């Protein structure tokens, strides 16, 4: 080594540096997000964030664009039989998985067979358990047969969990596929340092020519809101969601950053236990709905990043109907309460499904508003475990302790069925689903059932309109606000959007030098 001429080493190093230098500056994008990922297998994830991240390397047959409109991704087209039971899906040709194997109908079958097998114990089993069998018609045609007609099925295929995993990789990794994702997406998986970051890099064989436009994405989970905001200011991250309302102004003041408030499908409402006195009286429920100033609530608790809820199903979810907002009218509220036999109000419990600071502000505001018509509400902010015990897993509807309950919902399939059925069908009382109002209307039940059975769009629209109008009239909830989603990005970064369901869309992601 010692005899090695020094100049030679220098030359070699210089040459090496010359060849190693990339033709263009690498475009490395960093996303700062709020919590750690649980898995890279969307079929076994229940959090929106893990599924949003998984879109880096996975794609489904269908998907949603940034406005939650359903679009075909790996599928070319589909046909459904008249009885609504059989879906024939034609697939795009020439698509390869990251491991070089072909994407075809056999892959579709392998994926759906995996999730519908209860032995695999996947967390998204419920979303696909309605699939009876999947068959390969030819290489690029798959036939899916349902157990019962379910007109929202295509939305389930578009759901971020319904992705196509390479069957070869599934065999190779077995259970460990949850940490070794192999899909058809624009990026391939590089590494996952669980505590620190997850990194993906451009997949050169991606089927959509010219995409992706950046070289790598690093997903960094940073729990603390203020720390994420700090990373945006120092340029250590290019995109962050969520931005807390208090930080919005600080970030807006920075010339290189842009704060975006996107509409969401997150509806916040106050459910009232319709099986219990005094909430069994519709007049009491209406009075409560009238007594709350929703615009003021949006300003006070959400920093103005919310607006009064226009109906039972928020805009952006398919088949929503605009029915409100429910007016703020104290005189009417008092009159209704008097008619119901409570001229001086009553005492009750107000629970919140969350214990974060926004929920604290909301419940305090609601308490004050209800006080105006003489209703004295005692606030309890439920921690996740308490919530599960006292509300979500309560076995007997007749003794359920929940009264007024502040909670929210977003329909992850982007369709009215998942926005209404889990919350308001009589079959959805806890513990099975989340009808915390214990609301039961034969009409609504019938509408939901009929809408699921038909594949005709006009029919479906009619059923869902009817159901929403009935619910609005019965007022099992006081609809409060629809949230806006606050994200921030560096102005150099383009093409990253927060979707209405708080997932991300980054197919067009690009970074200007």
């Amino acid at each position, binding site marked *: 080594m010692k005899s090695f001429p020094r100049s030679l080493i220098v030359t070699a190093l210089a040459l090496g540096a010359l060849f190693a230098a990339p033709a263009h500056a690498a475009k490395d994008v960093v996303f700062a997000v709020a919590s750690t990922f649980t898995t890279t297998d969307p079929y076994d994830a229940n959090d929106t964030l893990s599924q949003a991240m998984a879109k880096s390397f996975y794609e489904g047959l269908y998907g949603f664009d940034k406005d939650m409109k359903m679009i075909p991704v790996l599928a070319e087209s589909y046909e459904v039989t008249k009885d609504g039971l059989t879906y024939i899906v034609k697939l795009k040709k020439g698509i390869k998985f990251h491991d070089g194997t072909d994407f075809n109908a056999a892959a579709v079958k392998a994926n759906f067979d995996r999730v519908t097998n209860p032995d695999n114990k996947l967390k998204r089993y419920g979303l696909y358990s309605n699939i009876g069998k999947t068959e390969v018609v030819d290489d690029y045609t798959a036939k899916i047969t349902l157990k019962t007609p379910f007109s929202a099925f295509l939305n389930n295929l578009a759901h971020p969990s319904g992705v196509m995993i390479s069957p070869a990789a599934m065999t190779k990794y077995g259970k460990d596929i949850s940490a070794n994702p192999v899909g058809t997406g624009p990026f391939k998986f590089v590494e996952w340092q*669980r*505590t*620190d970051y997850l990194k993906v890099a451009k997949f050169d064989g991606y089927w959509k020519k010219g995409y992706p436009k950046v070289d790598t994405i690093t997903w*960094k989970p940073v729990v603390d809101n203020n*720390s994420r905001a700090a990373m945006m*200011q120092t340029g250590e991250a290019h995109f962050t969601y969520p931005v807390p309302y208090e930080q919005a102004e600080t970030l807006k003041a920075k010339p290189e950053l842009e704060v975006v408030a996107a509409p969401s499908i997150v509806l916040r409402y106050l459910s009232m236990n319709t099986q219990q006195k005094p909430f069994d009286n519709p007049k009491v429920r209406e009075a409560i709905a009238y007594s709350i100033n929703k615009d003021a609530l949006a300003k006070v608790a959400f920093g103005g990043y919310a607006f009064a809820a226009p109906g039972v199903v928020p805009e952006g979810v398919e088949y929503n109907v605009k029915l409100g907002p429910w007016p703020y009218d104290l005189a009417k509220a008092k009159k209704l309460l008097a008619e119901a036999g409570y001229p001086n109000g009553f005492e009750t419990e107000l629970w919140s499904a969350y214990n974060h600071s926004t929920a604290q502000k909301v419940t305090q505001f609601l308490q004050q508003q209800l006080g105006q018509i003489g209703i004295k509400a005692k606030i309890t902010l439920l921690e996740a475990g308490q919530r*599960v015990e006292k509300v979500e897993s309560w076995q007997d509807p007749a003794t359920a302790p929940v009264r007024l309950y502040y909670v929210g919902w977003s329909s992850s399939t982007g369709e009215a069925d998942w926005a209404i059925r889990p919350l308001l069908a009589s079959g959805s009382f806890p513990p*099975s689903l989340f009808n915390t109002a214990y609301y039961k209307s034969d009409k609504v039940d019938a509408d939901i059932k009929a809408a699921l059975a038909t594949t005709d769009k006009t029919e479906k629209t009619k059923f869902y309109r009817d159901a929403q109008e009935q619910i609005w009239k019965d007022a099992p909830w006081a609809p409060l606000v629809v949230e806006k989603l606050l994200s921030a990005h560096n102005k150099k970064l383009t093409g990253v959007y927060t979707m209405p369901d708080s997932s991300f869309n980054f197919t067009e992601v690009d970074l200007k030098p």
Partner: protein
Amino acid sequence: MLQYIVKRLLGLLPTLLIVGGLVFMFVHLLPGDPARLAAGPDATPETVALVRQDLGLDRSLPEQFVRFTTGVLRGDFGRSLRTKRPVSTEVGERFMPTFWLTLAAMSWSVVIGMLIGVVSAVWRNRWPDRLGMTLAVSGISFPAFALGMVLMQIFAVQLNWLPTVGAASWKHYILPSLTLGAAVAAIMARFTRSSFVEILQEDYVRTARAKGLSENVVVIKHGLRNALIPVVTMMGLQFGFLLGGSIVVEVVFNWPGMGRLLVDAVDMRDYPVIQAEVLLFSLEFILINLIVDVLYAVINPTIRYR
């Protein structure tokens, strides 16, 4: 001495067993169904049942306890309910970051803290003392999360000298270790001062001075050594606390350590992880206490163990 250490180490086992039993009971007394939490907000009952079975939560409590204890005896702490990875891996990769951070914070804070303490004691009730104790009281009263955020705002956002979050390079250690060590330095300073003030009034110090030894020798050789005993005890305690992972500091600086893991685990009712972490904390405390006891003998050779 060796015999003493071995005896103490054997005494560990029953303590850990009792701690293990208590932890298991407490954790399972927490309200909330982990299967329901793990299955997610919009899961159907069938899915919850599948998850319950998958996590082994459908078995009876005594059965789960037996599985837990026999597992632990074989070194198997089960799998995390949240990530489904072995708990030992989960805790293992979190331990070192917390350990290094603790070490970084302890080393500067002990040195600075003792220095302030000694200076304050020697110049008692004069301006160095007043300044030192003002600093110490501020260090104790300033909450760590606020200090962390202020430091980050100044050094990372405004001046751009240091990175905000993460644990990748030595630069990442500066802000969190400052935040974490501030309170420890303050406590050490106050402890050293009070212990030193007492020692300086002892007869042997007077004798030493009467012998005509220089003040430096009196303070460093005769004073410091004897004042160290309570200080070392405190140091051990603080070390144990910090090793548990400071939740606040780890959240603010996104440190991949034990504190954050514990918060996540409690949130999701991740029983196996909570149990393993608490057991580890107890083990750490016991070991540190043992080390402190041994250090006593090193500092003061008149202390003997049998």
